[in-house]
C-alpha cells in the first residue's frame, strides 16, 4: 500500500542505536501518519522507550534520520521540537501548582496572559480537572497527576503527542477508564499520538496501528486486527494474546499438518512439504463431547474458571497439549472432541529450521565458533584456518545445568511452548543466538552450559 508523503508526519529512516556493546535499536524504519494513534509495543528492553526518547530529542541516534513533516529533526534539541511528551512518572514540577504546571510551556513562549488563562482552562476542562487549578500537584492522586501531565503537554498544541507508558502506574480500573478517555481525546483533537506500552491489551484497545518490537527490531506493523489474527512470527503470536503455537508442515496449498493431523486451511504459496509454525487462538478451538464429529480427540487436563469463559488444557491422543477457551466447562479427565475451522488456522513461515553458525577450523577435529572451542568429528578435506558453516538441528543442542560441561554458556532469553516441547532462545555473553528444542523445563534468565555432540554437527566449507 502506497502512502501519500503528505500524510506522513514522522518518518523514521534506518535508525540504529547501541549503548556500549548492546544494540538497542537495529535499523528501524517506520512512518507515522498524520492523526493516527500509533503504539510501540514490546517487552521491556525491546527498544520502544529508546525510540520514543529519540523522537522527543532526549537521545541521539548512532545512525539514521528522523523526519518531521519531511524535515530532518535529528540535530534539533528537544526544546525546539514541536512535540510534547507525557512521562511515565508524570514529572510534574512539585514546586508549581496545577495551573503553573499546565501554563509552563505557554509562559515560555511569551503567550499573552489572557490567552494562557483561556487555554489552560480549556485543557483542564478537557481532562476533567477544572476545579484543581490552585492545587498543589503533590496532593493529587496518581490518576489526577496523569491528567495534569496530559494537559500540560496538550496545551501547547503539539503536532505529535508522545506518551511513555502513561498508564503503567495506575491500578487496573483507573487504567481502563483512562484508556477510554485517551481514545476520546485523540478522536476529538486529531493530534497524532505515539504511545509506548508493554501491555498488549492496552495496545489492542487504543491503537490505529501497532508496531511490535523485540530486541531492537520491528517484528510486525499492522492494525490491531492484523496483529492479532495474522501474526507474522511466533514471537508476535506469543506476545499478543493467548495462543497455541506448534510446529507444522505445509503439505500443499490449503493443507497443513500439525499435532499429528491434517487440516484444511486458507493459506497458500508456502510450497509443498515446507516446515511452518502454526498458531491457533484458544477461543478458536471448538470443544465438544461428541467424539465422532471431531477432527481430533483428547483428555481434559485442567479446567479453570476465568470469569467470562473457562480455560482448559487438553492432552490430545497424540500427546500434544492444547489450550482451549470455551463458555462451557468440560470436566477434568473427560474425553472430548475438538474441531478447528480453516480460517482460524494461522500459518507462519519459519524464520529458521536449524541453527547455522559460522566457524573456523582449528584442527581437523576442533572448531572455533560462538567465540568458543568445540570438538567435531574429523573432517576430511578441511584444514586449519578454513572458514566453515555449521548446522545444528534445534533438538540436538544439549543444555546443561553445570556450566563446566558446556563448551560455552548462555542465558535463556525467550521461551515458547510448542504443544509438546519448549523452543528456547539462548543468548551467549558475546550475543550469539542459539535456538534449542527441549523437553526440560528452564526458566527465563537461567544460565546454561551449551554442549553440542560432534556427531550432530553438519559442517560445510564456505567457498571464497
Amino acid at each position: 500500500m502506497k502512502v501519500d508523503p503528505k500524510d506522513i508526519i514522522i518518518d523514521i529512516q534506518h535508525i540504529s542505536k547501541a549503548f556500549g556493546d548492546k544494540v538497542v535499536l537495529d535499523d528501524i524504519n517506520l512512518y507515522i501518519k498524520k492523526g493516527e494513534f500509533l503504539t510501540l509495543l514490546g517487552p521491556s528492553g525491546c527498544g520502544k522507550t529508546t525510540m520514543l526518547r529519540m523522537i522527543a530529542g532526549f537521545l541521539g541516534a548512532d545512525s539514521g534520520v528522523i523526519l518531521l513533516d519531511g524535515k530532518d529533526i535529528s540535530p534539533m534539541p528537544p526544546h525546539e521540537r514541536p512535540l510534547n511528551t507525557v512521562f511515565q512518572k508524570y514529572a510534574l514540577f512539585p514546586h508549581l501548582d496545577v495551573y503553573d504546571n499546565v501554563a509552563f510551556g505557554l509562559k515560555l513562549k511569551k503567550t499573552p496572559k489572557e490567552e494562557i488563562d483561556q487555554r489552560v482552562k480549556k485543557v483542564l476542562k478537557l481532562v476533567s480537572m477544572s476545579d484543581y487549578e490552585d492545587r498543589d500537584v503533590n496532593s493529587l492522586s496518581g490518576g489526577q497527576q496523569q491528567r495534569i501531565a496530559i494537559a500540560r503537554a496538550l496545551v501547547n498544541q503539539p503536532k505529535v503527542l508522545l506518551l511513555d507508558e502513561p498508564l503503567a502506574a495506575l491500578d487496573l480500573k483507573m487504567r481502563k477508564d483512562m484508556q477510554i478517555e485517551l481514545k476520546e481525546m485523540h478522536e476529538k483533537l486529531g493530534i497524532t499520538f505515539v504511545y509506548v506500552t508493554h501491555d498488549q491489551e492496552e495496545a489492542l484497545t487504543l491503537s490505529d496501528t501497532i508496531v511490535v518490537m523485540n530486541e531492537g527490531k520491528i517484528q510486525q506493523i499492522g492494525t490491531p486486527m492484523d496483529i492479532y489474527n495474522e501474526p507474522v512470527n511466533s514471537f508476535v503470536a506469543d506476545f499478543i494474546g493467548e495462543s497455541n503455537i506448534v510446529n507444522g508442515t505445509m503439505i500443499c496449498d490449503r493443507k497443513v499438518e500439525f499435532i499429528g493431523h491434517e487440516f484444511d486451511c486458507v493459506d497458500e504459496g508456502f510450497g509443498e512439504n515446507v516446515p511452518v509454525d502454526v498458531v491457533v487462538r484458544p477461543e478458536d478451538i471448538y470443544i465438544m463431547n461428541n467424539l465422532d464429529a471431531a477432527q481430533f480427540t483428547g483428555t481434559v487436563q485442567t479446567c479453570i474458571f476465568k470469569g467470562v469463559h473457562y480455560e482448559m488444557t487438553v492432552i490430545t491422543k497424540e500427546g500434544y497439549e492444547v489450550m482451549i477457551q470455551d463458555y462451557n466447562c468440560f470436566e477434568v479427565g473427560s474425553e472430548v472432541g475438538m474441531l478447528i475451522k480453516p480460517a482460524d488456522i494461522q500459518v507462519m513461515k519459519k524464520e529458521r529450521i536449524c541453527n547455522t553458525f559460522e566457524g573456523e577450523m582449528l584442527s581437523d577435529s576442533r572448531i572455533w565458533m560462538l567465540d568458543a572451542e568445540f570438538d567435531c568429528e574429523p573432517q576430511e578435506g578441511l584444514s586449519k584456518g578454513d572458514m566453515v558453516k555449521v548446522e545444528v538441528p534445534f533438538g540436538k543442542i544439549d543444555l546443561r545445568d553445570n556450566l563446566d560441561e558446556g563448551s560455552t554458556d548462555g542465558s535463556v532469553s525467550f521461551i515458547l511452548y510448542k504443544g509438546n516441547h519448549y523452543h528456547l532462545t539462548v543468548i551467549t555473553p558475546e550475543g550469539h543466538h542459539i535456538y534449542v528444542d527441549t523437553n526440560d523445563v528452564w526458566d527465563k534468565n537461567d544460565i546454561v552450559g551449551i554442549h553440542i555432540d560432534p556427531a550432530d554437527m553438519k559442517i560445510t566449507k564456505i567457498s571464497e
Partner: protein
Amino acid sequence: MFKKRSTWAIPYVIFMALFVVLPLLLIAFYAFTDGTGHFTVKNLMNFFTDGKFLNSFFVSLEVALENTLICLAIGYPVAMILASKDLNKSAVTALLFILPMWINALMRTMATAEIFNAFGIQLGKGTLLFGMAYDYLPFMIYPIYNILNKMDASYAEAAADLGAKPATVFLKVTLPLSMPGIISGVMMVFMPTVSTFAISEILTNNTIQLFGSVIQEQFYNMMWNQGAALALVMLIIIGLTTVFSSGKEDETQGGLI
C-alpha cells in the same frame, strides 16, 4: 522493663539533659546575673551599648555572609558537576573534595596561614575569607550534591520538552527544586562561620576580631557573666536563622545530612 520502646530513650534523655539543657540553663543564668549572683540585665545591655561588641558582631555577620556567598558560588557548580552523570564518571572527584576534611581543621588552617606567610602575603580579610571558604566548602557542596543527585532527570527533560532552553531549565526547574539543598548548605556554612574564632585569629594574625573571639576573650579574662550574655545573643541569632530556614524547607525534599 525493656518491653516499652520509650524506655530505650532514657540514656539519651539523661545525656541531653546533662550536656545540652543544663549548660544552656547555666548560660542563661550567668547572662542574667552579676558576679555575686544577683539578677541583672546589664550584661545584655552592654552588648548594645559597647561599641566593641556591636562592631565585632557586625563584622562577624558580614564575614559569615560573604563566606556563605563564596561557598555557594563555588559549591553549586561543583555540586552540579559531581551530580552530572556525563561530567563525573568516577567517585574520585567527589573524594577529592572530601579529602581535606580528613585533616584536622586547626592544622589545615595553620598550614594555610604558613603558606600565605611563605609567599609573603599580608594576612587580613582576604586570607580569612580564603581560609574559611576552604574549610567550609564541603559543607556547602554535600547537601546540594545530595539533592541534585537524587533529583529525577525527567523534571529537566519535561521542562526542555515544553520548550525551555538549557538556561531556562536551570532557572525555572533545577534551581527551585534544589532550594532545600541550598538552604541546608547555607545553614551549615553560615552557622559555624558566624561563631568561629580560632580560624580568624590564625588567618588574620588577630587583626580582625570576630564575635566568637570576643566571647572567648571574656571567658579568658574571667568575665563569665559578660561572656555568657554575648553567647546568649549569638545563640538567639543562630536559633532564629534555623527557625527561619527550616520553616521554608520542604520536608519531602530535605537534603540535610
